[in-house]
């Protein structure tokens, strides 16, 4: 549940920026936005790979199709609708473990969302729709914070969200670095929108001023210990939840997961500052964060039955 809702929120934030960009940004920025989104999801856009338009004619019609694909397409497992519906379905399956307030908030949002299609939001205010849904997931987090019993269910809910972040954040950074490499340089606007999508633009401006420099932005998004969406902080939060949960009955996997997260933290803390291959480090974090998911499953749920009754 935590993972699905976190992804819903991330997708909504990116799509909100993307639809806002349609109002006044040049076609190239819009292209970069879609490219980043599809790259993170490793999904082929409807109609095939995206191409940088020659002129300023990246049409609204294309964006309409792409937004529909990423928002309401039932066959796209990462569409906003699917992520949210899966989060709600997970919540339904464990309603006895979450609070009534959490369930109601999720269910009410789902009831509003379930019959919508892209045309319902497109002509009105699509960015408002995405902002609203992101706000729903924030409100769900608030309800969880205020009402959920702090047992292992709470830890697993948080763990899911942090693992999602630990995958989503490096994936997003890697996409931007790839776009920079292809463009033979960087566009300040790309990094600014990336910071904004990561709730980091205000912090960046406070620390570094108005001009956005990719190296500084990358450092902030990757290693800042206080920024909620940074790679390092996400890993640190995972480590914290592991400490709360213990190694679990599948102790071998549990300890292996704890060691892995320790290595990743060390990587971001000690190797990152001097590394010349930051892309490589991000790739490694992305890959190992995916492994963590399976290790957790084995440590706590699907553990081998050699364990004796205690």
């Amino acid at each position, binding site marked *: 549940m935590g993972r699905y809702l976190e992804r819903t929120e991330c997708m909504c934030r990116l799509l909100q920026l993307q639809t806002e960009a349609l109002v006044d940004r040049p076609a190239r920025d819009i292209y970069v936005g879609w490219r980043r989104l599809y790259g993170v999801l490793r999904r082929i856009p409807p109609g095939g790979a995206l191409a940088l338009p020659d002129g300023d004619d990246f049409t609204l019609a294309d964006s309409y199709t792409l937004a529909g694909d990423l928002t309401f397409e039932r066959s796209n497992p990462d569409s906003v609708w699917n992520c949210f519906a899966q989060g709600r*379905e997970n919540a*339904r*399956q464990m*309603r*006895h473990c979450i609070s009534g307030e959490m*369930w*109601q908030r999720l*269910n*009410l949002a789902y*009831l509003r969302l379930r019959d919508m299609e892209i045309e319902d939001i497109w002509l009105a205010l699509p960015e408002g729709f995405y902002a609203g849904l992101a706000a729903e997931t924030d409100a769900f987090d608030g309800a969880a914070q205020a009402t959920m019993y702090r047992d*292992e269910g709470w830890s697993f809910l948080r763990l899911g969200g942090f693992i999602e972040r630990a995958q989503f954040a490096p994936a997003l950074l890697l996409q931007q670095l790839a776009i920079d490499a292809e463009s033979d340089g960087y566009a300040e606007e790309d990094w600014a929108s990336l910071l904004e999508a990561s709730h980091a633009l205000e912090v960046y401006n406070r620390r570094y001023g108005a001009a956005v420099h990719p190296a500084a932005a990358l450092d902030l998004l990757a290693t800042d210990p206080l920024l909620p969406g940074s790679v390092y902080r996400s890993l640190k939060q995972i480590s914290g939840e592991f400490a709360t*949960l*213990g190694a*679990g*009955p599948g102790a071998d996997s549990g300890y292996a997961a704890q060691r892995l997260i320790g290595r990743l933290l060390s990587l971001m803390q000690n190797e990152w500052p001097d590394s010349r291959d930051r892309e490589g480090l991000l790739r490694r974090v992305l890959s190992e964060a995916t492994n963590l998911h399976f290790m957790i499953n084995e440590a*706590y*749920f699907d*553990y081998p*039955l050699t*364990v*004796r*009754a*205690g």
Partner: protein
Amino acid sequence: MNFDSYNLDAAIYDEMLLPDGSPREHSQQLYEMLLSISPERLSSVQEGVARSFLHEGIFFTVYGDEEAQERIIPVDCVPRVLSAPEWTLLDSGLAQRLRALNRFIDDVYNGAHAIADGVIPEELVIGCPNYRPEMLGYSPPEGVWVAICGSDLLRTHDGFFVLEDNLRSPSGVSYMIATRNAVKAGLRRLYRASRVREVEHYGNLLRQTLCELGPGGKPDPTIVLLSPGVYNAAFYEHMFLAHEIGAELVEGRDLLTRDGFVYMRTTAGLRRVDVIYRRVDDLFLDPFAFRPDSMLGVPGLLDACKRGNVTLVNAPGVGVADDKSVYPYVPDMIRYYLGEEPILGNVETYLCRRPADLEYTLDNLDKLVVKRVGESGGYGMLVGPHATPQERDEYAEQVRAAPADFIAQPVLTFSRAPCLVDGELEPRHVDLRPFILQGRETRIVPGAFCRVALRRGSLVVNSSQGGGGKDVWVLEE
């Protein structure tokens, strides 16, 4: 509101009104409220009830060829009121009935004295699809085979009748409580003034009951609720009950057996389980004992149960007592085991396996309700008076081909109660499903889920067949 268009029929018992149109004494307050409330206000109460179910996500899931559909049981906001004396009668009659049914099941698997004494024919018991020879010789804690029962009752001018006893996995108690919460919120002033007895403590009573049935009288046993899983139509109820009784909600894959004991996988390791409130059918409970292809059960579960290391509630094999062919013998069971006269009557029933009953059934198909003994939920049933001649002929062929699979009952003109339909009060047929718990003592919450045949003229109250629900208000003395 008014009753101007209310089609009061003196031949049919009305739960609120006397044949002259005046209210029954215990319905006086509700009647006056209905007269004083505007149609718009009552409709908004009705909408509030529906909204409450929608927002809470209280639904059953129907899986078809396309996407799964979440359906909400339509609930009528006008409660059905029962007086204290009426409830006292039901309470004692239902407790008596469950005591006798438990004695009967225990006898079936331990000596079969009732068969030897000619109280019930052996072939009915042995031939029952829910008879489980695997349970022969088993003795559950406190002699309780059925700890949770949901009986369906009808009322006519002649009183209450038990239509059937649901002993295997009686469902609907979550709807009873959800309906109460929703209706109470909509009619709060009337509810307070009416001095209605509470039903919300059902979870406490259920927990007490289950705790009393732990193996070897173990105090504070570990209880789990075994569900077939999230795709089961009644999953909401499973989740609700697990929450109410403070039990873990588990599926078969969450449990395992070791050395004759049952354990639950937890994030802290294996934990022994003492009582399993199971909502999985007998045949799927244990692939070692029953269907080997079951993915819902726990290998070795029955062995653990028979060793007395875990209690299954309700015990496997109890379906032998709620078979439609066995049902006509319940009054005799009460006399035989308890030495008492039945407080609640049965509906007259013809067993088509008997030649005389078969002949009568075939000759009177247009006056009878004919049911398949193995079906439930209103399926496989012929309502003779409402069927076409062709439907009756086709059904008669099926009855002739396998008479033992059918029973027949007269069409009862069972009671009706006012319902809000399209902004007006109209009478609809209603039944009553109270829930009876049997541990060391019998416990019955004063209330029930009232099922309503929402289609005009329909006698079918099953939710799968277009039925709805209603709150039942049992008044204090």
